[in-house]
């Protein structure tokens, strides 16, 4: 007698845990994702500017369930000998264990190091702003802007969120008027409110996509989508839609180049949205 085989009935949650790739495939076939988004849709993005009053500039970014706070603290430092009138911008990303169980306490992990360096490169190579506007006194004192991005809740696509927070904070921050006392070598800031905003030459924004087989693109991937994607592509464009840099991680499908055009179009739309979000959010007075 043949054994009595009963079909296994899995709950959706169990199915997702056991076979995440297959679980996603079923959704993607129907042009929808488990969180209800269509494939090329970004998560709702919101921005709150200069709410942290202990920082010179700040921005809180929510990208779905990913939430980051960028705070900029301005300090005074000596310029490098080979660049006597250039200031510093030091971006760092902190992914502490508070935001997700995947991060451990202690020194920063690989992801936060990588994102920190990516932000640094974008600012440096993308010619986002001129560092000579941070000069207080040539050869002696310049501003050093510590732009620290702290993640509060993590659900993937940290680069987009971190870069948006950094750009928004830089755009709306104000530097106090500073003078160097030649005799004492001490830099003081004036008590009257004559602070000035920075001049941002080229605001840049990132759009990240997860690539799946058969040229399927998922915009703004969550952490589960990032984990099962074949490749991740981050496109960084400026407000005019010109390319700043493109990163791909993972193995690219051979027809990757055929997706590129679609990627750039989507990234350009995204950049326009983010730029208007940043300019529309005037700081709270």
């Amino acid at each position, binding site marked *: 007698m043949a054994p009595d085989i009963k079909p296994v009935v899995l709950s959706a949650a169990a199915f997702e845990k056991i076979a995440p790739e297959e679980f996603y495939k079923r959704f993607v076939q129907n042009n929808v994702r488990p969180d209800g988004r269509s494939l090329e849709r970004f998560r709702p993005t919101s921005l709150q500017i200069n709410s*942290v009053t*202990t920082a010179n500039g700040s921005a809180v970014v929510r990208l779905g369930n990913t939430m980051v706070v960028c*705070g900029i603290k301005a300090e005074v430092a000596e310029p490098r000998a080979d660049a006597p009138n250039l200031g510093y911008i*030091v971006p760092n990303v902190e992914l502490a264990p*508070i935001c997700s169980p995947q991060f451990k306490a202690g020194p*920063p992990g690989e992801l936060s190091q990588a994102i920190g360096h990516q932000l640094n490169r974008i600012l440096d190579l993308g010619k986002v702003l001129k560092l000579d506007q941070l000069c207080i006194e040539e050869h002696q004192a310049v501003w050093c802007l510590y732009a620290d991005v702290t993640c509060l809740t993590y659900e993937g696509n940290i680069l987009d969120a971190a870069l948006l927070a950094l750009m928004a904070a830089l755009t709306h921050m104000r530097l106090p008027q500073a003078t160097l006392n030649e005799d004492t070598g001490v830099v003081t*800031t004036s008590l009257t409110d004559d602070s000035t905003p920075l001049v941002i030459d080229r605001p840049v924004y990132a759009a990240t996509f997860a690539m799946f087989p058969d040229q399927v693109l998922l915009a703004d991937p969550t952490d589960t989508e990032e984990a099962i994607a074949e490749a991740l592509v981050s496109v960084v464009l400026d407000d005019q839609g010109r390319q700043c840099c493109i990163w791909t991680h993972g193995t690219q499908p051979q027809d990757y180049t055929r997706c590129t055009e679609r990627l750039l179009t989507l990234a350009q739309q995204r950049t326009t949205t983010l730029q208007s979000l940043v300019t529309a959010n005037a700081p709270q007075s």
Partner: protein
Amino acid sequence: MDRRHVTGPERSVAPLPAGSMNEAVATTQAQTAMFFDTQRNRQDGRTIDAMRPIFLKTGLINQASGSAYFEQNNIRVACGVYGPRQNTQAQFNENARLDCGFKFATFACDKRRQFQRDPEERELSQILIQALTPAVRLGMYPKSTIDIYVTVIQSDGWWSTLAAAITCASVALVDAGIDVIDIVTASAVLVLPDGNVVDATQQEEQALSAQPPKCHGSLVVAQLPTHNEIAHVVQTGKMTPAQLTKAIDTCLGDSAKVHSVVSYYLREAVLATEPSVLA
């Protein structure tokens, strides 16, 4: 040498506000006088016995077992609780272990902080563990750890921030569904010769602590309000026993007010999600 962060110049300092070096001593008296008018009203419009309004929200961090966000004007504290999860230490323990990671965001205070946890943050972690332990039924979770991570996004008054962190962590524990016998609520006062200043801001702390130290101290009391028990007391500075008793009474009254806010919020939160529970 820190190779894990993007590093800037070797040394950098926060700029000084103009005139702060020579006139500092002279202005403190005037500043203190400025803080209270004759009706004992403060700069932000509060009287000396009034707390700042509280905003509270749970479930902020969806990856955590429980989380809470606590805001009191400029104080913003976020807390995530992970656990109970397996204790990886080999030794068997019939009680759960509470672990706390207290961290100021680098931009949370007037002076920039470092990424590494400094001794002050370690001390605050210990205070938090001591304040919360009396409320948690650790015996319910043998062989496990409960991790409490607190991030201060902005602090405004060291003592008030500590009190806010204790309350926030306790609410996050409740949100995580961890068995507790009570919600721990805390509040802070500055003790002056002629009265207590409740829930002081950073500016007030600085101005008042610059005064000649006649008799001046700070106090944070964490209590289990429904049990009417004190969970933790942190007292510093100089005060007479009578002043201390009075200050503790003030703190207990205030944290009872915090408790009414917290329990009202939690009740509303439960009603919003599962109306049948409280029916």
